[in-house]
């Protein structure tokens, strides 16, 4: 398969094989991380481990530093205290090999859907060096992914010709086309209507089960968090602190029916109560 041919050389794979005998080290590790903007403490003593291939969601009241957490993990912001590791290496600057998607799809308006999704392949090795010589193979790779998210027939459209939901699908594709180890999602579905949103939960879960990346989803939608994540973290008001860690025991793949499962409903209600408590404890 194409993905195997394009994978990185033997050494990283070898180390993964060697480490399978021990419990695999976390993909993301935060130890006592805090961040101050001037005098204001935005995030305080955040400690968490995210396993390789785990999908976590971070929920909390708005302005609690969820997005800050994301910027810290990817090295876009340096922490003012504590340590962050990604892929067993200390994070000192913007990390390589992560994908990102935001609420705003930020597709480039002069590029077609295919070319927009192609963007990371023009920048990230090993694809970058092939992008001239073997463009056809990369286009096939993009087309495959577009097919999976249901955009197969929209590859040659410009962003303004797509609906909001379709733009967000293309945005997801762009975030994972280069097969990153880590996918960061900052409220990617917040601006979509309820039906489109639940469609995209499905799309995202399919992509995750297909590529097995590690995922961090920042959201204020509890139903979304519980539906998608293996583990949900609840954060407090500013200064943001991680208050609860909640494992979601629901089977995969989760389906729209899952949302009527009593276990699902119970977890969502429980989380809602916790967040309400956080908000009232001002």
């Amino acid at each position, binding site marked *: 398969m194409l993905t195997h041919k394009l994978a990185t050389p033997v050494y990283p794979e070898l180390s993964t094989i060697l480490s399978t005998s021990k419990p695999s080290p976390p993909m993301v590790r935060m130890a006592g991380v805090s961040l101050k903007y001037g005098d204001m403490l935005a995030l305080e003593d955040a400690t968490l481990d995210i396993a390789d291939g785990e999908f976590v969601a971070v929920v909390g009241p708005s302005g609690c530093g969820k997005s800050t957490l994301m*910027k810290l993990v*990817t090295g*876009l912001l340096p922490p003012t205290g504590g340590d962050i590791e990604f892929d067993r290496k200390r994070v000192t600057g*913007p*990390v*390589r090999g*992560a*994908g*990102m998607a*935001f609420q*705003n799809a*930020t597709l*480039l*308006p*002069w590029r077609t859907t295919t070319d927009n999704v192609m*963007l*990371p392949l*023009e*920048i*990230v090795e090993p694809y970058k060096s092939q992008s001239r010589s073997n463009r056809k193979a990369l286009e096939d790779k993009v087309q495959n992914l577009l097919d999976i998210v249901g955009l197969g027939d929209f590859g040659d459209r*410009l962003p*303004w010709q797509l609906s909001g939901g379709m733009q967000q699908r293309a945005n997801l594709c*762009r*975030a994972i086309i*280069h097969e990153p180890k880590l996918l*960061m999602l900052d409220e990617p579905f917040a601006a979509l209507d309820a039906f489109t949103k639940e469609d995209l939960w499905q799309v995202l879960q399919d992509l995750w089960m297909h590529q097995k990346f590690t995922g961090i989803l920042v959201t204020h939608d509890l139903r979304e968090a519980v539906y998608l994540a293996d583990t949900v973290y609840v954060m407090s008001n500013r200064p943001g602190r991680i208050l609860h860690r909640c494992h979601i025991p629901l089977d995969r793949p989760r389906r729209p029916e899952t949302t009527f499962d009593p276990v699902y409903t119970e977890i969502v209600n429980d989380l809602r109560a916790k967040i309400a408590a956080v908000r009232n404890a001002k």
Partner: protein
Amino acid sequence: MSGFIKRTRAWLVAFALLVVWELSCRLFHIPEFILPAPTRILEVTWQFRNELALHAFQTLMTTIVGFFIAIVVGILLGVAVGSSSAVYDSLYPLLIGFNSIPKVAVVPLIVIWTGIGTIPAIVTAFVISFFPIVVNVATGLASVEPEMRDVLRILGATRYEMLRKVSFPRALPYLFASLKVAITLAFIGSVVSETIASNYGIGFLMLSASSRFQVALVFSGVIIIAIMSIAMFAICIQVERRMVSWAYRSQAA
């Protein structure tokens, strides 16, 4: 019918204005050296067509050369100012100060440095027209969404890749908007320089015509500059439509 009126409205108004002008000149017996009638201007234009063509070509040439230098320098400076905060802090106040100087006042200096004729006209056209290009390119580069910047940084894009693949295409509509302003300014620059220090060009022709009270010929010069300016403006719009059609989606939809 209403569509036809809409399309030709500007022409109708212009024509009506000319008729009023012509009639006033005839009815009130306005002397030609004060305000010549449009028909008289037309007559003189035809009479001096060779001289007008020669001088118009000179003005067009100096304007276009100055304009192209302004595009190159404007883009380079705009990219420097727009992509580095150090350059922005150190250069931008200087640029604003420079732009607030009336260029007409600088033309004598330009003449001292570069002599008389074609070169000062080109330099003045450049000096007067590059500023809006710098400002717009810098603004366009700054208009890239912060989220997009984050996405690119995580991908490990170099500054050059960010510029080439995202920021510069994003700035193109801003660039073209500024070109439409700049081309008009470039015409002003070259004509001003020609009136001060040149033996060629429409500016020179108008100055010498007015000193001989050939007011109709002065008007011919004005009209020819207006026509050239509008033509260049139209060319800019056409190039813009081609290069950044994605920015005009509402018309295409």
